[in-house]
């Protein structure tokens, strides 16, 4: 059976969704005081950047922006094939007492977020950690919930959800591809 693809979010829809997520993050935090956005490598970093830009436009505040690479914290390193490429981790401020929002493109099993929480703990003790994702596709394998969701997508286990961002992929788009052989 050939794979069939459908567009979940167009470029316009991605922009609208991120705008709403940014507003929701500020609202939940009751302003921007103590707020730190941390994007997960790779596409979470770009989405966190967009959210920060949107907050700056509406609140006129530059929210500290970090990037987290969770490769070294993965729980499947002993079983995956070749060693995954390690990306950069940069956190602009000490996280003690901050309101950290982890930003990722797609929330699926929750294992990436588990790794991210472990890694964040090595950088300090935030007052609160929240999770914002552009797409929640379900299929959790751990008790992890998002606080801010762009869009929910019903994606069966074998399907793929690909988030594309202009910075890396030339365009903004979210595509759902039904899996072959699943």
């Amino acid at each position, binding site marked *: 059976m050939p794979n069939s693809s459908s567009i979940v979010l167009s470029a316009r829809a991605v922009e609208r969704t991120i705008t709403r997520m940014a507003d929701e993050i500020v609202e939940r935090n009751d302003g921007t005081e103590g707020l730190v956005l941390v994007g997960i490598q790779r596409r979470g970093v770009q989405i966190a950047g967009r959210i920060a830009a949107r907050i700056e436009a509406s609140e006129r505040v530059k929210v500290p922006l970090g990037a987290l690479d969770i490769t070294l*914290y993965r729980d499947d*390193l002993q079983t995956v094939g*070749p060693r995954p490429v*390690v990306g950069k981790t940069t956190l602009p401020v000490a996280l003690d007492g901050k309101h950290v929002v982890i930003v990722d493109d797609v929330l699926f099993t929750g294992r990436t977020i588990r790794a991210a929480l472990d890694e964040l703990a*090595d950088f*300090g003790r935030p007052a609160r950690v929240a999770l914002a994702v552009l797409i929640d596709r379900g299929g959790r394998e751990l008790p992890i919930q998002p606080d801010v969701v762009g869009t929910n997508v019903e994606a069966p286990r074998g399907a793929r959800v690909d988030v594309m961002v202009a910075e890396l992929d030339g365009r903004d788009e979210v595509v759902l591809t039904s899996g072959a052989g699943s």
Partner: protein
Amino acid sequence: MTSPLGKDLLGLEQLTAGQISLILDTAVPLKEISERTIKKVPTLRGATIVNLFFEASTRTRISFEFAEKRMSADTVNVASAGSSVSKGETLVDTARNLEAMRIDMVVIRHPASGAARFLAERIESNVINAGDGTHEHPTQGLLDLLTLRDRFGTLKGKRICLCGDVLHSRVARSNIWGLTKLGAEVAVCGPRSLLPNAIGEMGVTVFDRIEAAIEWADALNVLRLQLERMHAGYIPSLREYNRVFGVTRERLARAPRDVLILHPGPMNRGVEIDSDVADGPHSVILNQVTNGVAIRMAVLYLLSGNTPALADAAKAPA
């Protein structure tokens, strides 16, 4: 188990440019871990690594130990003095006994060239060569490459001269292999008594005068005069060596460009290198030490679990 390339790091001679670049690229993000308050990631949790040092070492042993601990591995240090080695146990017996206690990796430093390969062919664990005789010291070569790449952006077309005791230097050999594979131009400079006879066959230029080397080079990697390996009269005296081949401020001042200064340590200050050069503005000697931990973390990461990451990189174009 995958190919020997996937299992062990024995030297840079066997690696492709793609594999060397993979190790350097992996080391770059790992540097950040050593800057954290909690300098530790859980990557090698549960792995046991034995540091088998049959020769004196401070920097390399400590650097490996930091790298192992920052990756959360459990480490055991075995030195030849005070172990069964001093009772006459063979290298293979020592290693097999360690393996019987279920270890995952061995880091070995040994005075005999080829000792790391000898061991790698006989045990299941990953073997990392931390210096074998006058053969290779691959992690030192890699950290030199990373330090140069940090400064120059690329090694292509850069001119690097290895100065001094090339004959006894495993660091020189690893550097020559690594630098030439990454496209640098390599030269050596030193008294003929301290250069291997067939050095020209490694594709390097030979300078007899340090002034000529300084005029040519973008960077000098000043090697340590290995007095402990010199059992015959290789040089007339340390003072004369310094006068003729020493890297001094006066000599560097006449260079047409700023020359980056590397030294693998430990330094003989006032012999192969003067203090004001070693501590000068163009010295990256301490950057080398910092990079050493990241390089060793990268090697541990890439070799661990017997995965074919390095073997795969060998197939990819550089």
